[in-house]
């Protein structure tokens, strides 16, 4: 699923950096990162996020072999990202809970801060 447009994001993630998109023209941040700004159509670049934020919403998938928590996390920078919540008790997860990025096999995920 990686391609010429998104490869740099996953290369950075493998090195432990969580990147978000920023437009070189309008300066707006966006997620998921893409080559053309979704707001103004300008050219974009990847910038490193601090990697901290809070849970916007989540759901624990129960009826599968290995239950897992999907979530939207709103980063301190203001954009909201789809992710998993890991290394925590699923029953302890709450909206607005502070979380920080961790990397699992080169994929950014989040865990309680």
């Amino acid at each position: 699923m990686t391609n010429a447009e998104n490869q740099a994001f996953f290369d950075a993630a493998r090195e432990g950096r969580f990147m978000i998109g920023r437009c070189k023209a309008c300066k707006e941040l966006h997620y998921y990162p893409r080559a053309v700004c979704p707001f103004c159509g300008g050219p974009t670049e990847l910038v490193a996020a601090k990697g901290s934020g809070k849970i916007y919403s989540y759901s624990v998938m129960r009826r599968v072999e290995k239950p897992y928590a999907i979530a939207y996390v709103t980063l301190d920078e203001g954009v909201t990202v789809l992710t998993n919540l890991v290394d925590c008790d699923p029953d302890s997860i709450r909206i607005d809970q502070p979380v920080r990025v961790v990397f699992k096999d080169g994929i950014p995920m989040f865990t309680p801060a």
Partner: protein
Amino acid sequence: MKACIAGIYEHPTRKAPDKSVAQLHAEVMNGALADAGLAKQDIDGYFCAGDAPGLGPLSMVDYLGLRVRHVDSTETGGSSYIVHVAHAAAAIRAGYCNVALITLAGRPRSEGSSGTQPRNYGANAPDAAFEAPYGPATVNMYAMVAMRHMHEFGTTSEQLAWIKVAASHHAQHNPNAMLREVVSVKDVVESPMIADPLHRLDCCVVSDGGGALIVTRPEIAKSLKRPVVAVRGTGQAIKGQNGGHVDLTWSGSYWSGRDAFAEAGVKPADIQYVSIYDSFTITVLIQLEDLGFCPKGAGGRFVADGNLISGSGRLPFNTDGGGLCNNHPGNRGGMTKVIEAVRQLRGEAHPAVQVKNCALALANGTGGQLGSRHGSATVILERA
């Protein structure tokens, strides 16, 4: 009056291991033609979406043996067929066709589909690399909508359960419905948790089946023996993540509903019956709010205490039992929403759920994932 729905057909099958998807499309075509009193040769426009096997209308027009001068394969998931009604009405007004056939069919039950499976729209989907690793299925992407709505507005599982309870009250009268047993709020909230906060009974059924519509110009509709149901207003919209400014508390139905009401020149209080896509209970609540039947955030109180039950509630909905109890052919609910609205306007719903003197109805659909990106479409129909 710009166009009318002259033919409807809902396939009675709920499990079709011995049929092909194309065959189901052909059977619903024949059903809608018979309902309208038209012949296959009368069809000069064909509409299908992503459920159509092969290369969309190319495969299907050839398979069905049609000779058409207008085709449309707009794909917005389960809302596609309501968009097709809008496009068919526009095409008829423009003179591109006179008799438009819209078909839907699918066999997800025979093929083992489940809402807990991760959804895959192809490796080239621009979001795929950023989302597929996290296991976005259907149910958990809608569950996050419910979780956020509960957080912001205090909506409860018991309030959501009332949506299923109302659907089950209607489904008991539908001999074709998959689930005909009347359930209680307690039954819903005590059913197994699938993806917090959605329980098994918050989820629609998985069924095989299909449906078809025939949209035609008013002169033709009036020449047929069926009650005339006119398309009064339509709207369509796509809503997504807005570049990372995610707001799960409202859907594109806010936009599609606003456009449909404006075109029809009516307001929510005028509507006597609604068909609302019910992939999950939360889907219904969000749409009712966005369409203006109650203020944003008040949906939980609006749907509670049987207010969606025909005959006793203030806004009868999904009187066929909907996706929650009746069927969900192809995992796409927009088609059956239009069909039941037409039945209500014709006075052909089951007598136990028929809305008295139903003259104005609304059908609304969403498609894709309410939790990430989805289509919304609204149609307002009137008995002419």
